């Protein structure tokens, strides 16, 4: 079956020039997103998950940020070649985005109706009146009770979970083809997290929206993603379907991540497993596998060159010297 690819990222590089040196926040990231797919992007804080997605939207604060290379294809358009105006049509219209902290992501000085209506009017080219109707519909859809009244409220009159629902309603109000959810539940209570995730999942299925789910929570990924990309220090180290990644993690980093999730179905361990050490400082990183200082399988080779991509089947890719050795040996 040929996949219907709507978003393709090739060799994306986003660097930040700081006083301490060049921060290679994203250093050669490639992935594809097909219609209706939910793609998980997993990694620790600072691994470049958010920056990759802000780059897709051309929202990197510049200076200091700069896209140094790579291509982003949205449909058949190359995003970095678009004019500012064409790019604005994509933002919010074709690609919707929701953010980590719902408490600060809505403008506290404007009513919900103002914030939702302006987006809908902009992208749907409808009257304000129709836009408001649409906004109320969307708020209804995401489960805001009495949406008709509440749309005239200010953000501070909503709880955190409700605000995230409003953000979702706003992001989906223009029927985007892609929804980028940047850690949408990290700032919420655990009980609310599940509700929000279910909401994103059910709405994306219903509306046929492809989702990029950025998270550091493997539980989120396991629950709702079709495919998973694991990021480390600005690169994707492992790709695979949800089942593949969780049943048979290949990269030592992924293995470590999965081992460090507390499990109910295994006998209680004395201590929770954790990956030793800290994620590397991505300023002026030398040519090496950035994971080698924390890796239990580290070899000499890891310290001198970044491992190439090794493919397993159609869906799996791993960047680790362990597999490069093995495939060559076979």
């Amino acid at each position, binding site marked *: 079956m040929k996949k219907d690819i709507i978003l393709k990222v090739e060799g994306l590089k986003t660097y930040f020039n700081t006083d301490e040196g060049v921060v290679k926040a994203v250093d050669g990231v490639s992935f594809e997103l097909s219609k209706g797919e939910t793609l998980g992007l997993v990694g620790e804080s600072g691994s470049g998950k958010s920056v990759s997605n802000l780059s897709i939207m051309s*929202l990197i604060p510049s200076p200091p940020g700069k896209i140094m290379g790579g291509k982003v294809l949205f449909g058949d358009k190359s995003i970095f070649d678009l004019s500012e105006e064409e790019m604005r049509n994509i*933002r919010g219209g074709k690609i919707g985005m929701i*953010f980590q902290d719902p408490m600060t992501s809505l403008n*506290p*000085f404007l009513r919900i109706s103002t914030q939702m209506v*302006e987006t809908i009017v902009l992208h749907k080219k409808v009257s304000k009146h129709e836009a408001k109707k649409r906004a109320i519909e969307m708020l209804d859809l995401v489960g805001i009770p009495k949406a008709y009244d509440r749309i005239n409220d200010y953000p*501070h009159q909503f709880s955190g979970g409700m605000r995230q629902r409003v953000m979702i309603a706003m992001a989906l109000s223009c029927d985007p083809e892609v929804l980028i959810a940047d850690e949408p539940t990290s700032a919420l209570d655990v009980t609310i997290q599940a509700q929000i995730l279910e909401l994103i999942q059910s709405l994306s299925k219903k509306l046929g929206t492809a989702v990029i789910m950025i998270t550091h929570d493997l539980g989120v990924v396991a629950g709702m993603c079709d495919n998973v990309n694991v990021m480390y220090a600005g690169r994707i180290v492992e790709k695979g379907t949800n089942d593949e990644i969780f049943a048979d993690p290949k990269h030592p980093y992924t293995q470590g991540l999965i081992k460090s999730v507390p499990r109910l179905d295994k006998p209680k361990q004395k201590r929770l497993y954790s990956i030793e050490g800290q994620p590397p400082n991505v300023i002026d990183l030398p040519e090496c596998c950035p994971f080698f200082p924390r890796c239990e399988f580290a070899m000499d080779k890891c310290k001198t060159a970044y491992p190439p991509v090794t493919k397993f089947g159609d869906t799996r890719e791993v960047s680790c010297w362990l597999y490069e050795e093995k495939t060559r040996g076979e």
Partner: protein
Amino acid sequence: MTKYIIRRVLGLIPTIFIIITICFFFIRLAPGGPFSSEKKLPPQILKNMQKKYHMDQPLIVQYGQYLVDVLRGDLGPSYKYKDYDVNYFIKQTLPKSMLLGGLALLVALILGIGTGMISSLKRNSWIDYSSMSVAVIGISVPLFVIAPILMYIFAMKLNWLPVAGWLDDGGAKTLVLPVLSLSAPYFAMIARLSRASFLDSLRSDYIRTARAKGLKTSVIMFKHVLKGASLPVVSYLGPAFSGIITGSIVIEQIFRIPGLGRHFVQSAFNRDYTMIMGTVIVYSLILVFMNFLVDIIYGYLDPRISYS
């Protein structure tokens, strides 16, 4: 909201009362009086004068009488200018000072916020650096230096504008230099304040959301950033206005403007008790009212503030 306004207006009464009381007794602590001059008046004449203005009565009686007069809206006769009362002077001069101060504040606000906005958008560019350098000059160079320099350049050398005077003798042109020099320090302060708060807002999460929605930069600036970013500027308006009022005293002297500020200074030299009291009451009313206005604007701008 109406309740809040009523409560605030009622709150003004004790404030003004305290100001009147302190001022009434303090000015009488200073040596000399309205009728003391180089050449001493004969005792009988002095006595008659004091009698005429009820100054022979005990201080507390005078104070009580003054309060009653003020409540009736009568600020009393001037002790220096015979046959004129304080109300007359204020009616004559206050509109001029208000026009000068109001225009200066308006110019400072528009130019200041505009400069701050552009600087924040083009941060760390030459536009940003040069406008912020101008702002530093505006803050650090005092009014009485800026005014003569502007006067020298635009009036004496270029001959574009009149050196001094007021509307009646030179038309609207006479306003330009006084308004510009009076607004300079406040323009500078507002420019720096708004640059900082615009930058803050621009980095905020909700502006990232606005960008991610595909809004134009102009819409983002005026609809999403301006409201929140103007809050620090609004809180600065109270002190700014009091500064502009005191500044206008200097400016009115330099540009020979027949405003209230002149009388404020002159009356203090003359020990013209009623005149001092009158100007103090007017100025404090303006200031208290401005602060009240700032609070109302604040609440209007920030929906999270409620007046209940």
